[in-house]
């Protein structure tokens, strides 16, 4: 596939992600902060987000597995996840976090467990899609093109 085709593919894929609500304006902000001095900025931030989210999801599973659930602890973790997902524009993850926090505030165990499943699902979706996006960018670079800004 030539560079022009790859670029078109990347453009279409990115547009789709925005259209389906997986990403929002904040992701565009991050892309705009990337320049020659910091050519891997977006990948770096998103990688941090992946590491952070995986850690938080594990902590959440542990916290919700306790006999006496500490809802403040659960809420604190969800709050962090909400913060970092909104920082990178992962809109759907952020939305589930909002519902998750409501369940915490209501001390609703079932609600929390359901939200945990949902947030895990949304997280794995966005992770997968961002990896595809970055892979397309890599292919463009490898084919001798410069990544679109």
């Amino acid at each position: 596939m030539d560079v022009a085709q790859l670029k078109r593919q990347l453009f279409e894929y990115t547009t789709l992600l925005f259209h389906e609500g997986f990403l929002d304006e904040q992701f565009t902000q991050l892309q705009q902060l990337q320049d020659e001095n910091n050519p891997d900025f977006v990948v770096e931030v998103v990688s941090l987000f992946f590491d952070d989210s995986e850690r938080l999801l594990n902590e959440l599973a542990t916290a919700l597995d306790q006999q006496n659930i500490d809802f403040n602890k659960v809420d604190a973790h969800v709050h962090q996840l909400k913060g970092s997902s909104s920082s990178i524009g992962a809109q759907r993850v952020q939305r589930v976090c909002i519902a998750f926090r409501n369940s915490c505030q209501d001390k609703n165990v079932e609600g929390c467990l359901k939200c945990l499943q949902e947030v895990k699902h949304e997280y794995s979706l966005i992770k997968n899609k961002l990896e595809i996006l970055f892979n397309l960018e890599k292919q463009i670079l490898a084919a001798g093109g410069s990544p679109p800004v």
Partner: protein
Amino acid sequence: MPKSQFLGVFLNGEVTALVVDDHKVSQIIHHQLLNFFGIKNHVVGNRKEAIEIPYSGKKFDLILMDRDMPVLNGIEATKKLRDMGVRSTIAGVSSHSISEERQEFFEAGLDDCHEKPLTAAKLLSVVSKIKSKA
């Protein structure tokens, strides 16, 4: 016009900033956002480090203070810094938009407050409020 040149129009000389946030994702974004605007910045991961800064003799024109941090939260840290005589422009960054909490944050000594995540537009608004160098 590159962003940093645009800012140079109403910023006289070099502007320095301190980012106070314990969250790695926010740290890296705020750091890059400030870099992009040509603002030299230093990042600390917790309030305790932030309130030790005045003792080190370092002065910053702008402090970006995250509200939610463990140990010493942003409100207390802001109060402490003001009590220590820090006159820098302090902008709060918070994921809460509840008015009472914003009010409390402002009363602690903020000059400006914005909801996370910080964007280029929000930062421009903050920078326009920077008082003469601290």
